[in-house]
């Protein structure tokens, strides 16, 4: 059994983004997704700091200090892109105008609660950024996350231990081991990496899973 790399998780999530979607990519792992969009699809990426139509990272001669994404990395703008102020950027988020937000997380609960803003580490002041706005506002929330912590503790839990970002909002989770849907009937494993049994997956998952009848091997390019 070979877990997916971070880039493979991003690749897998990218395959589910349909042509023409308006998408916000959270900071960290979700940002990698932009690199793996199938070439025949035109996706409009949104950034909290007032951009629609984010393009790839700039070449050395394209760098513009006034053009960054929400992760504060330099970006470019595609033809058809637009700039607007922060208030309109969050109107888009909160008002359900984004089709998909791909987010990182510390934990996701059985009900689709997400905790991704603070671990209450006393060494750092807390920061929330746009995490709560995105989790509440986008039409569909999908999470990209390592299945367990470095210590092997499950991140997919009955209830989140860390402070919540938002409740009952996550619809799908991409991990290095599986693709899991959050449904009204609980969590359903749709795809498992090859060589992993459902029992093994459940053993590293605190939330109760069921295996989809039509489950598939989790493939990654």
């Amino acid at each position, binding site marked *: 059994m070979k877990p997916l790399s971070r880039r493979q998780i991003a690749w897998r999530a990218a395959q589910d983004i349909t042509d023409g979607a308006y998408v916000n990519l959270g900071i960290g792992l979700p940002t990698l997704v932009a690199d793996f969009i199938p070439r025949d699809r035109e996706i409009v990426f949104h950034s909290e700091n007032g951009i629609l139509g984010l393009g790839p990272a700039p070449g050395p001669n394209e760098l513009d200090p006034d053009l960054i994404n929400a992760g504060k990395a330099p970006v470019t703008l595609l033809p058809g892109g637009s700039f607007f102020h922060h208030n309109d950027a969050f109107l888009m988020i909160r008002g359900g105008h984004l089709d998909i937000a791909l987010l990182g997380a510390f934990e996701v609960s059985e009900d689709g609660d997400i905790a991704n803003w603070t671990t209450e580490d006393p060494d750092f002041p807390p920061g929330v950024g746009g995490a709560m706005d995105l989790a*509440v506002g986008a039409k569909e929330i999908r999470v990209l996350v390592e299945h367990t912590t470095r210590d092997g503790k499950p991140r997919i839990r009955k209830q989140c231990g860390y402070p919540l970002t938002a409740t009952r909002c996550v619809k799908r989770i991409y991990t290095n081991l599986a693709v899991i849907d959050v449904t009204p009937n609980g969590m359903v494993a749709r795809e498992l990496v090859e060589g992993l049994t459902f029992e093994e997956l459940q053993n590293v998952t605190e939330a109760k899973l069921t295996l989809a009848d039509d489950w598939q091997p989790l493939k990654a390019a």
Partner: protein
Amino acid sequence: MINKQVASLAAALNGIKDGSTVLCGGFGAVGTPDELMDALLEQGAKDLVIVSNNAGVGAKGLAGLIGAGRVRKIICSYPRSDDPRAFDTAYKTGKIELELVPQGTISERMRCAAAGLGGFYSRVSAGTKLAAGKEVRDIDGVPHVLERPLKGDVALIRAHRADRWGNLTYRKSARNFNPVMAMAADLSIVQVAEMVELGEIDPEAVHTPGIFVDRIIVI
């Protein structure tokens, strides 16, 4: 590939259901989506709730819809116009319901829906007949009326230019209610004078970003 342009008025209006709430852009006769409204008459949807600053002029456009008995209710700030015969007749014969809302409050209620908020408190109309039946709350000693979001099933919008992603620009005071209405409906349908190539609209000067637009028809 994203291409929001449609080939016909019929395709633009396809699927609008009876009972829909339809936001209609424009102020007076400026920036009104006349051809879309005429086509809505053709399309046949009835029992409509129309949100529009005014209530139609003469016999075409919104006045045509009202005259044909297709509008159950209108939410507007100023139903009078130079030639308000269609609305006046319907109103006097009790065939149309009028919800009169201050102009800024209509606009703000649509923005509230667009922004995914549950409501807001405004001093406007507090202590007047237009606050009748609304919750009033003292904030810092000043009475405020609780206003609720106003969302459209459909918005009919008139813009000047568009690209295939749905980015729009308007001309001068023809902008008026169009941008807020485009944001506040599930389905935003836009008539434009001209399609331009992607990238031709200055990204610093897009008036309505394409995310708010679903269908575009060139008139």
